[in-house]
């Protein structure tokens, strides 16, 4: 069976190669393809995007790097240049590294739980025999439209030591004493991770469903003729074919999880102690919350963290290319 499937995949790749081997527009130099007024039109159509991109992406990015070399509280003149001092201080700041560590743990565990679960749900919801598909999709997708602050509030009430979950667990004798899931250092971070998974699960399920729907039906038919069962089809057809998309989904999930902020702000404010401190919350506290504001210092933390995200994105490109081959 696997030979037939492999042949089918190989013939598809061959067809793709033959298409790409034809001479495309990209092979003709720009100066020969475009002339005169075309340049004006290109500039006119690109201008709105470029203006927005420079204003809202490039400028803030450059400004953040510039601020990071200053002792600055976010207001007044930016006149106290201190070079790399903020970076040196950050490197020695245990709170930053703790928050960095928590953020990585959050992103890894969140991704490790979220992706397999959402893939499983997507596989089940793309089966022909599944009933009420639309209802299920809506059910799984609904948490995504709930604002993070509201989700935080709801779970705060649900999971605190006097909340509904503790009521049930203590009434049934599962717990002797209630546990404040968000207020206990050992459980707070994993609780936030699970709330985050609950909220974002539907979005990744949709990604997986889109990937699954792109697997050619002919591959499944060929596999069936070859006597493959559903499990074989999953391992031998579905997963290999969606591997490039899966890599993108994996990195998207990881990079998005690195940016966790709202749930922490809405549920634990980084506590108890610093057990749920994450980088975004650290930056927010330094820049906007704890007086006196340290905008320059927060900018340095943001730049350092941005480099981490950039590395993750670069790795994504590398792994996607590898998966495609």
């Amino acid at each position, binding site marked *: 069976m696997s030979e037939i499937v492999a042949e089918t995949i190989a013939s598809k790749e061959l067809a793709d190669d033959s298409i790409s081997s034809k001479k495309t527009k990209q092979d003709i130099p720009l100066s020969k393809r475009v002339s005169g007024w075309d340049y004006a039109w290109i500039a006119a159509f690109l201008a709105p995007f470029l203006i927005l991109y420079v204003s809202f992406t490039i400028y803030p990015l450059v400004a953040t790097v510039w601020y990071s070399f200053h002792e600055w509280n976010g*207001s007044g003149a930016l006149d106290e240049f201190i070079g790399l001092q903020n970076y040196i201080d950050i490197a020695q700041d245990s709170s930053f590294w703790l928050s960095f560590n928590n953020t990585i743990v959050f992103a890894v565990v969140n991704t490790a739980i979220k992706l397999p679960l959402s893939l499983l749900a997507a596989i089940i919801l793309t089966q022909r025999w599944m009933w009420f598909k639309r209802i299920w999709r809506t059910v799984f997708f609904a948490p995504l439209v709930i604002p993070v602050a509201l989700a935080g509030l709801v779970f705060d009430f649900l999971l*605190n030591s006097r909340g509904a979950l503790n009521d049930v667990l203590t009434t049934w004798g599962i717990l002797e004493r209630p546990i*404040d899931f968000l207020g206990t*250092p050992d459980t707070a971070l994993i609780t936030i991770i699970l709330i985050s998974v609950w909220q974002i699960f539907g979005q990744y399920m949709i990604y997986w469903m889109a990937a699954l729907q792109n697997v050619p039906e002919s591959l499944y038919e060929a596999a069936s003729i070859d006597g493959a069962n559903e499990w074989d089809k999953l391992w031998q057809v579905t997963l290999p074919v969606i591997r490039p998309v899966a890599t993108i989904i994996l990195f998207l999930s990881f990079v998005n999880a690195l940016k966790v902020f709202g749930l922490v702000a809405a549920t*634990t404010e980084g506590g108890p*102690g610093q057990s749920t401190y994450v980088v975004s919350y650290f930056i927010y*506290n330094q820049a*906007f919350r704890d007086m*006196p504001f340290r905008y320059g210092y927060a900018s340095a933390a943001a730049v350092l963290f941005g480099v981490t995200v950039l590395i993750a994105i670069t790795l994504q490109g590398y792994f996607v290319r590898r998966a495609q081959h």
Partner: protein
Amino acid sequence: MKRLSIIFALVALLAISLAPVIAQEEVTLRIMSYSAEQQEFYDAAVQEFTAETGINVVWETLSRDAYEETLPRMFDDGSAPDIFFWLGANRVLTVSELIDAGWIQPLDASVLPDDWMSRWDDGIFVEGINIIDGDIYSFPFNDNKIWGAGYMYINNLVWADAGLGEDDIPATWSDLTSVCETVRESGPYCVAIPLEGTHFQRTWYPLAGVNYTDNFFDYQLGRYNMDDLRHLETFEYIQSLYADDLVIPGVNGRDETRAAMAFGEAAIYFGGAWMPSVFANTYEFTDVTAAPAPTPDDGLSGALAQTNSENKYFISSTSEHATEATQFIEWMTRPDGYFAQNFLELGFGTLAYADNGAYITDPVMLQVVDIAMNQRPNMRVQYPEPAIECPAVASSQAFVNAENIRRNWEWEEMVLALTTGADFEPIAQEIAAAKNEEFLATIEAEGISPDCFAFPDWDLTTNFDPAMYSMGD
């Protein structure tokens, strides 16, 4: 008729075109603060001011969190109000901080009466604190004797349901534990303590302030003091309340714990002088008794810090109406004026420039005043101000650098120890050692003597006598 219509149309056009010019001449002051529950009062107050002076005023309020996030952004984009309310990181040196930030400008002294400063007690206006280079930048708003942390509030209904009466109000920590056990046996928890963020301070200040000081810096010895045995003793006592299941469990926010007390889930909440107003206006709850915080079993051995820290209203540097803003401040600070009378009558707090006893009518607020003025007059004592001892301290970064080792370090670690039951002493020693090291290194680099921060002849429980300043002697 046709000609008349044309003339009428021209006059109308002229009136319309001139209207903005005329309107531009009218000044509208914008004031911003938090305490949204007081909005109705502010609206009435500004109407009164407008009726008297013809100057329009709009007073906007936000919730505290929203306000503290919004105001700095308003300074960034140039939309700051003319007058704003602000609590600085270092409450005594807020004016210096805000001048450094470029947020404020001085009051226009030309429209202030000559005796304006006499509305406050002597010694309130101090160069380096609210006067810089001879210009007045702010004024103490709330009084600093009554106003502040340090009170114990009891839900009378929960108290009565537990079979407790007025005579059972705990005077000592042992009494508190004992009545708490009684309350707990009747069902509700005894104490509601907020642990989220830095809100643990609401319970810490009253209990630390009766044993030693509410400060994490000892101004007698000139050092950070988290490792002091008296602080550790206070912490252990609070930890024992948790261990005995007498406190609402979990990490709860400020509003959750206030609501828990107001709605009968707990009997006691420790809070500031503002709580009668908060209970009444936010929770419509008035069946409450205010009492002094229980002392250690061997009696009162500490005091809360009374500092020149109530400079809270400022004229923003971006305001083009400093004169009108100063007029408003002058009107607002009239000891027998509309603002003072109604602010006090409505129980919103106490004022530094008015006779608080004369206008307060709220019975719980009157109890608060009685506690601070009569029952426990040394509950809050006047603290020395290092910036007066050594003017260079006003620009020192020593406290800032020590705090920057880790913001909110004490609070975070105390909360952690309360939620885990861990021994706090080792971390307390680590905090004190790290902060003292950074503090001493900074002042050494700045050329400031450690003696500027130490007042060994003062005992922390009595008012600091200004004669004790050596002023470089």
